[in-house]
């Protein structure tokens, strides 16, 4: 077979994949709408404010963790400083709202632009580094941003955080000071964010990322600009992490240095492990698990670290994979058994 024929062969086999992925995308959209409908109906079914708070926190951390999975799971870039974008989102949004008084959507977009600029600058330096160096340099940038927040007292309020509340004016009929409105808005942001990330993950670009993860040199041989692809996903994922930070800022009506501290990144990595990095919704499952765990453990015992540590050890040494990975493998093994049976 000549090279030309090989290329044609590739073209011939391409359409069925496209059809399949298009059908999958409609399914994604349907699932997203159904999920939003379920989430939006919760306030009418349960009157518990704690439940709504829990979902809002899940939205903030879920967006953050899923965006980290785009780096860790899909591209194989273990970032230990992803939390800086969470903090940047919270501080950026809070500051824009406090200082300028523009409408919420403008501040939202402004924060995303700010995040994109910072992420491009940091990413341009970081993404060419290998595994462990990448992890540390991102960690160093995270700590750099954290120490800037702590030391620039006149702008950020130092270790006290942004206090005095974030102004949350009404926009487009939505009132962020109303708990239900804030809840619905967070759910909408979560579902839209997840849907967009799913599109990225299932796009040809998403498959390029998987290829880079599996074999970066081979990807580079077939003409993929690895540096550019990595930088693109670094910036894209920072936008979703920043959105998580914005939700958090709206929720607590403030921003605190802890949002930009390395432990947020550590938790993000842990969430990914807990849920599993091989499935798209793994981090979301991990978020719900970790937040539930957090709430229960802190209520039951003051020795939070020991309990959480043992749970992590169970996942890291015992299961060696996340819950969703485990579930998917179990399901596939069971289906395999059924198919083999007469």
């Amino acid at each position, binding site marked *: 077979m000549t090279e030309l024929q090989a290329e044609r062969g590739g073209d011939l086999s391409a359409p069925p994949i496209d059809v399949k992925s298009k059908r999958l995308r409609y399914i994604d959209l349907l699932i997203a709408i159904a999920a939003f409908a379920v989430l939006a109906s919760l306030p009418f079914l349960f009157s518990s404010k704690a439940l709504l708070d829990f979902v809002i926190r899940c939205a903030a951390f879920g967006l953050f963790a899923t965006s980290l999975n785009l780096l860790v799971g899909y591209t194989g870039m273990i970032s230990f400083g992803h939390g800086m974008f969470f903090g940047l989102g919270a501080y950026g949004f809070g500051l824009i709202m406090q200082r300028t008084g523009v409408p919420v959507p403008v501040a939202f977009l402004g924060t995303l632009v700010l995040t994109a600029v910072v992420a491009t600058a940091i990413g341009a330096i970081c993404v060419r580094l290998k595994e462990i160096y990448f992890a540390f340099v991102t960690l160093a940038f995270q700590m*750099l941003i954290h120490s800037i927040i702590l030391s620039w007292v006149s702008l950020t309020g130092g270790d006290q955080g942004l206090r005095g509340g974030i102004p949350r004016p009404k926009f487009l009929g939505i009132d962020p000071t109303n708990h239900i409105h804030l809840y619905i808005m967070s759910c909408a942001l979560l579902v839209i964010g997840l849907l967009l990330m799913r599109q990225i993950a299932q796009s040809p670009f998403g498959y390029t990322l998987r290829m880079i993860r599996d074999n970066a040199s081979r990807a580079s041989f077939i003409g993929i600009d690895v540096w550019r692809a990595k930088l693109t996903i670094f910036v894209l994922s920072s936008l979703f992490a920043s959105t998580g930070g914005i939700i958090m800022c709206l929720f607590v009506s403030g921003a605190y240095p802890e949002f930009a501290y390395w432990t947020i990144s550590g938790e993000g990595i842990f969430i990914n492990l807990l849920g599993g990095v091989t499935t798209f919704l793994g981090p979301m499952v991990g978020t719900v698990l970790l937040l539930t765990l957090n709430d229960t453990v802190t209520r039951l015992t003051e020795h939070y670290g020991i309990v959480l540590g043992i749970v992590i050890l169970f996942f890291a040494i015992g299961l060696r994979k996340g819950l969703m990975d485990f579930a998917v493998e179990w399901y596939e093994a069971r289906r395999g058994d059924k198919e083999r049976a007469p």
Partner: protein
Amino acid sequence: MDIDALTGCFASAACLVTQTTSGLIIGMLLFLVAVGLTLIFGVLKVVNFSHGAFYMFGAYFAMTAYQLSGSFALAMLCGAAGTAILGLIFERVFMSRVYGNDVLMQLLVCYAFVLIFDDVVKIVWGPEFRSMGMPTAFQIPPLFIAGGVVPPYYLLLIGVALAVAAVLGFSLARTRVGKVIRAAAHNPGMVSALGINTGLIYGGVFALGGMLAGLAGALAAPVRSLTPGMGFSVLIESFIVTVIGGMGSILGALIGALLIGLIRSFGSLGFPLFTEGLMYLFMVIVLVARPTGLFGKEVA
């Protein structure tokens, strides 16, 4: 920012001496922690994220031993030996299970132990600040060098760290054990095939790394306050040191630690609020110029 204070200090010999010694002791403590980290990485290819906990345990062990016995030498010994045993157990029981897995699992096992160890210290020694107090042998008037104040304990600290650096450098380069360790770092499979127990080497190197961190903690106990979580800032700083110096390089760890120590002590004059930021900035600059660190070799 206070640039005048910084330039003023450079003009005065007394201030220079004081700041340089304080930079040196920060650097030397960091070196002891970082050299263990870099050794463990060089041989086991594992980044020991829980290394700060060994520093913390070293300090607490030393404090307890000192309070019970009143002997400074015994306190140092307990700090070092206790963490060596801890390191050995930690490596054999837990870390050895995640070799060859991806970095993520190793980081997570260490992260779990950071959380667990901090809580254990809280339970055993309490969450509040503790202090060991300066041993009576060193409660003597400070030395004055060119007008600068140098407490005698600082000299001991610097001396011990330099001795450790010399002994380590010599044994790795010249002795049989050192050669085996370097061979195991290079090709563990071949070393194992030659009839050498690599598990023992791994455990030994981890115990040695833990011991050095514990010694650093024990040495720091008289001059720093002890809290659960004290290991973390040291851990981050020693990461910066190893990354600046180059992962796996002992000389790199020494130079990196001294640079960071000096940046901290002089930076605290000129940029009191941004001292930490200066370190991160320095690390970023080094990595942009040389991604493998000042003395690091390209990792295949």
